[in-house]
């Protein structure tokens, strides 16, 4: 390197005893600690899972397999895995000082992270809503009597309202709940709900923080202050992102896949 000209250059990366950057070591320690956070949450879930095979004190309060949509969750898991791949590309680009490539990959990670979060919100909403089958009778726009079946949320009023919004030119004369296939699961109504939402919610907050962090870096990269010698800052964000990803693999296995055995 040629002669240093600013204070920053002079004091950039003071050598450490181990050769590992201070910030990086700090992130590793944080992740070690975070393992214990998730370990506690996951063990709480698994202990109660074993204690209450039905997921709740009263059998039938929750219908776990009916509720889970393993295709959707597998998809969002795959997306999260791929976001880790993009994260690795972003870190590598930063090390080479390729700021454009960093930005593109970073945006990709953010986008994939948001897809994951979107899937989680969608999933939570469905779990909260439950599922029931309704039979309806009514008069359609052409004046004909129609009867049929409708799949909607477990709450009858909400389901009727949703049905009405979907077929607004349709006059309902009868709307009857035939069968509740999946009862709604809330934080309160079952122990499975409590442990599931707190654990996956904590993971979701981690993903959201990661997205916010990477988005801040993306914006910051336009100030011109993010250079190849700051690649460490991107790298530790990457460490965090990969960790959050790995935790999800564990949760996906221990919480979702295990239910299908």
């Amino acid at each position, binding site marked *: 390197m040629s002669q240093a000209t600013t204070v920053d250059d*002079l004091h950039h990366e003071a050598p450490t005893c181990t050769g590992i950057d201070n910030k990086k070591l700090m992130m590793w320690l944080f992740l070690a600690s975070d393992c*214990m956070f998730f370990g506690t949450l996951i063990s*709480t879930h698994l202990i109660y899972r074993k*204690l209450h095979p039905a997921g709740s004190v009263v059998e039938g309060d929750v219908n776990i397999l009916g509720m889970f949509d393993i295709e959707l969750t597998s998809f969002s898991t795959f997306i999260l895995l791929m976001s880790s791949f993009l994260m690795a590309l972003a870190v590598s680009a930063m090390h080479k000082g390729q700021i454009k490539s960093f930005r593109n990959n970073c945006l990709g990670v953010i986008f994939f992270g948001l897809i994951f979060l979107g899937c989680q919100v969608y999933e939570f909403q469905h779990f909260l809503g439950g599922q029931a089958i309704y039979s309806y009778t009514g008069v359609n726009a052409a004046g004909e009597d129609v009867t049929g079946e409708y799949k909607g949320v477990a709450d009858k009023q909400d389901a009727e309202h949703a049905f009405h919004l979907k077929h607004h030119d349709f006059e309902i004369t009868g709307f009857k709940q035939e069968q509740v296939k999946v009862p709604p699961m809330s*934080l309160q109504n079952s*122990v499975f*709900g409590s442990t599931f939402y707190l654990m996956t919610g904590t993971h979701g907050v981690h993903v959201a923080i990661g997205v916010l962090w990477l988005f801040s870096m993306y914006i910051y990269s336009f100030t011109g202050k993010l250079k190849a010698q700051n690649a460490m800052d991107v790298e530790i964000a990457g460490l965090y992102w990969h960790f959050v990803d790995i935790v999800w693999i564990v949760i996906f296995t221990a919480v979702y896949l295990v239910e299908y055995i």
Partner: protein
Amino acid sequence: MATAEHPAPVAHKTELPDTLSEIGLKRPDNKSGIVDWLTTVDHKKIGIMYGAAALFFFLVGGVEALMIRIQLMQSQNDFISAQLYNQLFTMHGTTMIFLGVMPLSAAFFNFLVPLQIGARDVAFPRLNSFSLWTFVAGALVLNMSWFFQFAHTVGWFGQDMLHTDIVPAGGWFGYAPLTSSEYTGLGTDFWILGLQILGVASLAASFNFIVTIINMRAPGMTMMRLPVFTWMTLITSFLIIFAFPAITIALAELMFDRYFGTNFFRVAGGGQPILWQHLFWVFGHPEVYILVLPAMGIVSEVLPTFSKKPLFGYPIIVFSGAVIGFLGFAVWSHHMFTTGLGKVATAAFSLLTMAIAVPTGVKIFNWIGTLWGGRIRFPVPMIFSLVFIWMFMLGGFSGIMHSAAPADAQQQDSYFVIAHFHYVLLGGILMGLLSGIYFWIPKIFGKQMHEKLGYIAAGLIIIGFNVTFFPMHYLGLTGMPRRTHTYLGDMGWDFWNAFATGGAMLLGIGVVIVFADVVVTICSKARRCSNDVWDGRTLEWSLTSPVQEFNFARIPVIAARDAFWEHKHGNKEIGAVPGDSHGIHMPSQSWWPLLSGCGFIVFGIGMSMMSAGVPLMGYVSIIGLVIVTLSIYLWALEGPGGYHLKVPEAIGSANTQPSSQSAQA
């Protein structure tokens, strides 16, 4: 890397021009007085503030303890109500552990670790300031409950509250389901939020110290040359980062139970109160070692100094500390022997609990080995350290009695347990910390504490402590339960309780004398002392007292364990890394750690008040979190900064003083 003349101005701190942060705000670098203290990133000042807060809360916890003792002085006493009694023992335990012992240990970590490893500061100076202010925030949230209790008493909250306990009253380990919203009120919310915020502070500080110790050691300061106190800091910090998550999650689950009606610990919904006990003690038992290891570190520094001998079996002491750290995570269920764990689990935890006595015993033998054949002096710190060994051993003996599960079943929740852990926490840890106060005050302030007063205080504390707690073994074995508000006169407990209360008064007087003398010493102009009052062994004694803001004018090069001792009396001198032209690089100060601490206070109070049903408080707690987030962003955007100080010539040439100057105590 750089040989060029340094472009930044080099002068005394307050003479430097203002610098701007990366977002254009003026940095509070070159201030003095109150702004300097509020924004400081200097580990020494942060250590002093930690210490001041800790001593204050020691007094608060002490007053609470004395009120408990006065209530128990005689049978059927009505000095305080049962509710206040519950609040007092809960807050006494919580205050002493989280606001007394831990921050006082943190004060020593902060002040000593960089000095002992030959560094100019910790790895993340602003994060260090964040830890301090977040700790203060958590302490305030916990203790503000007293003011809200007062507000309730005078009728501010209306009269329709279900529970009137606004100060935490569920015991320091807050067993479920007592902490559920059916049984306790606002107090539990203050307790949850206070502890969560304190947890953030402890975690941040621990990350910082581990990185500092692993990464910032001076050249030649290998791990096996580290002073034992620094080693114990490292192990304690590792314990904190692995133990605190368990209680953080347990508290989060409890909070969800209380605020959002989840079923983690609610039996009706399928929850298991026993889960709380497991999660709490997975944290709670390592916590015991988090409290005691720093005190052991202090004793391991004091004993060799006053025996004029190197620490006996240094590697074994370090290794034992690490083994205690590991085993500390494997013994938590001995707090739960009476819950019906099952034979195998009980036997396993019984065995492991006995096993953890081995490394502790090894340490005690090493300390005795250090004394053996030494040229022992008896100044005040040495008195406290010797008492530490003795009292801690007594606490350890009753601990081994508890490790036998059948015996423990008899002793559970009796005053025998109270006696046991006060021998460990007070007879052990407090003696160690007092030893540290007497030992390092001359280094911290450059002034000597009053010696005769020190002996008097030590006598009062040692006698008062034993008079208070030794009879409790007897009281416990004859059946007196812990946490009892009062007892009947025909139990035969009157005499020993009155005796213990008398002892507690002596103990209180002794502690007040020490703390008053600390204040007097700091304010006094006459008690100046030399740089190396005790003929010390470790690096901090090679510096001036008080230590200059940059610690080491030149970063030292270490050639031996007990580096300064070897430098003075041996043939291995402390070298110095050659200086460069641009002066000493100092970290910039910052307002943002303080602001995030304020955000935590708003958050904590807002959440608690929300639970009390005060309108709009949900928004207030969100505002609190926004303040925290905002200050973290401003902190990140402010940039690392830094300014440069001129190396004073007199010190620059001789980092360490010649041995002839070292005074004999």
